[in-house]
């Protein structure tokens, strides 16, 4: 099968972690990619500058959904300062796949929402 759909990605796509909503999140951010219709809403609870809970909701392709699921797992327990330093490489490492320019947009949509939420900036470049 295509290297894109490795086992871990399919697992996160079929059984997404942290999918849903938080009660009164501290940060909520919605982003979408109109070219393919991927949508994500990311919610975070923050205590002392550290992410204590994370959830996402949305729809989209396996890559964007797996990326969101993996990312929410990973960011819990991380400080906002650390997350501000995250780059596209961090997400690609999580996904563990090589990715072309079109699908890259899918893979990075959750990061884009995270960054924008954390920085409080709409439409920031990931």
């Amino acid at each position, binding site marked *: 099968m*295509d290297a894109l*759909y490795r086992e871990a990605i399919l697992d996160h*796509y*079929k059984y997404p972690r942290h999918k849903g909503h938080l009660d009164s999140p501290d940060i909520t951010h919605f982003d979408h990619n*109109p070219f*393919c*219709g991927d949508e994500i809403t990311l919610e975070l609870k923050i205590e002392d500058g550290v992410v204590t809970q994370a959830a996402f909701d949305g729809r989209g*392709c*396996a*890559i964007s959904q797996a990326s969101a699921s993996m990312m929410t797992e990973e960011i819990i327990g991380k400080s906002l300062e650390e997350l501000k330093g995250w780059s596209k490489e961090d997400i690609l490492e999580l996904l563990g796949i090589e990715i072309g320019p079109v699908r890259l947009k899918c893979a990075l949509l959750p990061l884009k929402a995270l960054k924008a939420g954390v920085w409080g900036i709409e439409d920031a470049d990931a």
Partner: protein
Amino acid sequence: MRSIEAIRADFPILQREINGAPLVYLDNAATSQKPLAVLRAMDDYYRLHNANVHRGVHTLSEEATALYEGARGRIARFINAPSSKQIIFTRNATEAVNLVAYSWGMATLKPGDEVLITQMEHHANVVPWQLITQRTGATLRYVPLDAQGTLRLDLLDTLLTERTKLFAFVAMSNVLGAINPTAELVARAHSVGALALVDGAQSVPHLPVDVQQLNCDFLVFSGHKMCGPTGSGVLYGRRDLLEAMPPFMGGGDMIREVRLEGSRWNTLPWKFEAGTPAIAEIIGLGAAVDYLADLGMDWVAQREHELVRAATERLSRVEGLRILGPGIEQRGGVVAFTLGEIHPHDIAAILDADGVAIRAGHHCAQPIHDFYGIPASARASFAFYNTFEEIDRLVLALDKVHAVLGM
């Protein structure tokens, strides 16, 4: 008729392997592949005749001009235009629509006037009209779709009124595959005194098109979708309209005289062709229409109809697959579909792993997808060089999508 194998041998790219499997190219509505005759026409031009056209007195320039203007004549005949003066070269169909919007639209439209388009238009036939109606204060209206993905022709009487100055619509949808009753729609536009612009980006490459029979005022199409090179497109227009329209872009070739105080325009078609044209590309497009004319557009349409009939039959048996658009009688060689909840990107990516190239997205037709309430669709689109075996490969690969992503 030559065999399909012989025809396929004209297209070098069809020999390619993708991820270890022979390429199955089913993205023809996005752009077609090019036969050797087209590549050779351009290569020969550059190796033997390349020079700037018009007004050059030396041999190369005369040769280049004869090749360039010769292509115009052959393209005119391909759509049965009364005169090659009515064939204006643009980069693509999109520029051709913009040319009409900027030149005719800006000079003509006033507040109270209406432009009518449809909900099945490609963005190329939406955005220019949004821009120009905003600028001029005119109003943009849409013919909506019915449940079959065809036009609500029952609403035309209400939508087409004496306020309508232009009815711009697609002859064949690049998503729904729907073939519209073009000549009838042109007549309806004319009956209220409106002009009719036909977006032929999908019809000219795939169906016989005769502008005199359609009686349309404008027709736009793209070379790259009809075996021709990128960078080539055409605006056909009614002669009196083109004569009366102000120029679009200014520059060399489109003028007759330039004085510091002002300029006089050149005659048709050059009035609308500013600067050095896409010479090699138009010569390539000339070779492409020769190639298509040799095959015969009736044969092309027939062959693609058989392909799409087989495809829709086989696809409709795939679990969870839903085809957008009308039944086979009204459909050209395009099948857009959804597959359960699986995102079209995932479908296309998994198909690609087996060498099957289809497109996923909104195909530059968001209003259609809004109508269906979906963000995107997968689309297989056919050309005469496709085969029934390739349809088998498509269906097999779709089974794999289920296997990989099915819950």
